[in-house]
């Protein structure tokens, strides 16, 4: 499954300062959809370069990080149970508070 992942709001610093990643990932159980729960583990194991505690807390993202699936807040889609499909885009963005 081809996905586009984006890291913004400073999170890209944990991913080699690369904001956009085109990835190829197969759902472990041979299904054609992937749960966000599984994607997060894949990201931690394959893309995350440093300070995992700045990206994750427990099995979810750390507080202050929004997850957006195709321009929609993952809370509206089931959060960790939300599923992504071929060619979907998932954005991980840290809330900013500078001015």
């Amino acid at each position, binding site marked *: 499954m081809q996905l586009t992942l984006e890291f913004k709001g400073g999170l890209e610093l944990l991913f080699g300062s690369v904001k956009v990643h085109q990835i190829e990932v197969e759902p472990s159980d041979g299904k054609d959809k992937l749960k966000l729960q599984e994607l997060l583990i894949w990201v931690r194991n394959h893309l995350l370069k440093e300070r995992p505690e700045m990206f994750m807390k427990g099995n979810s993202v*750390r*507080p202050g990080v*929004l997850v957006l699936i195709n*321009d929609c807040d993952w809370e509206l889609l089931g959060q960790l149970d939300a599923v992504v499909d071929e060619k979907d885009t998932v954005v991980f963005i840290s809330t900013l508070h*500078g*001015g």
Partner: protein
Amino acid sequence: NCERLHNLDPYTISRYSRQLLVPAFGVKGQENLLKSSILIIGAGGLGSPAALYLAAAGVGCLGLVDHDVVELDNLHRQVIHTEGAVGETKVKSAAAACRAINSFLKVNEHYSGLQASNAVNIISKYDIIVDATDNLPTRYLINDACVVMGKPLVSGAALGTEGQLTVYHHDDGPCYRCIFPVPPPPDACQSCSDAGVLGVVPGIIGCLQALEAIKLASGTGEPLSSRLLILDALTTSVQKVKLRGRNHSCIVCGDAPQLSRENLHQFDYEAFTSSLMSDKI
């Protein structure tokens, strides 16, 4: 004899004629704007353009809150202040600039900054609140005070080459705590002082905050409620995403809120966020 169709005198009509001509805004929009009061919290990178454009557009009353003085390293982005204002309070400098643009504007200068002890009182005096601050505890404080006082909150932020914009607590949309009930760890919080910001990025976001405030005050268009705008200045990309709705178990805007206008002043925002209400270290 002519019927009086609106309350605008000839000077006002002439002054604002170019926006009276905009069908979606018109005389009604200008009348609403002239009656409105808007509070800008933070007279820095975001507050500079927000104050200039709100003053120019003809809001009735503008409140400015900040307790800092203008410093040399502010000037690359805080375009409301001049070199001659370095050392002066930001509120005084910004208020003078707003009055020079529009002498009909009433400007209230709040020099004390915003704390849990005065937030409800200050915010209660205005129709719309613009969060143009630079630190996490103040963002939670402003959110909570807006919710308990029933005010829409135009929230902007900028860091590095990125910006974010949304309107909280409006039209049954979420508040800041609905989206971020738990604050991020303090190590994850970069401010403009330690991480830097390209000056024009808060310029763009601050203008967009003025736009949202004008839309709310004039009753024009659709304010950015339950939506988040994300700016990437390096590629000039702007993404608008759909946010969750109001969280019914939110501790401030939920169905059984723990925070109220009576007890908000007791909440320790600095302890809650493990960070200080100032980006100075």
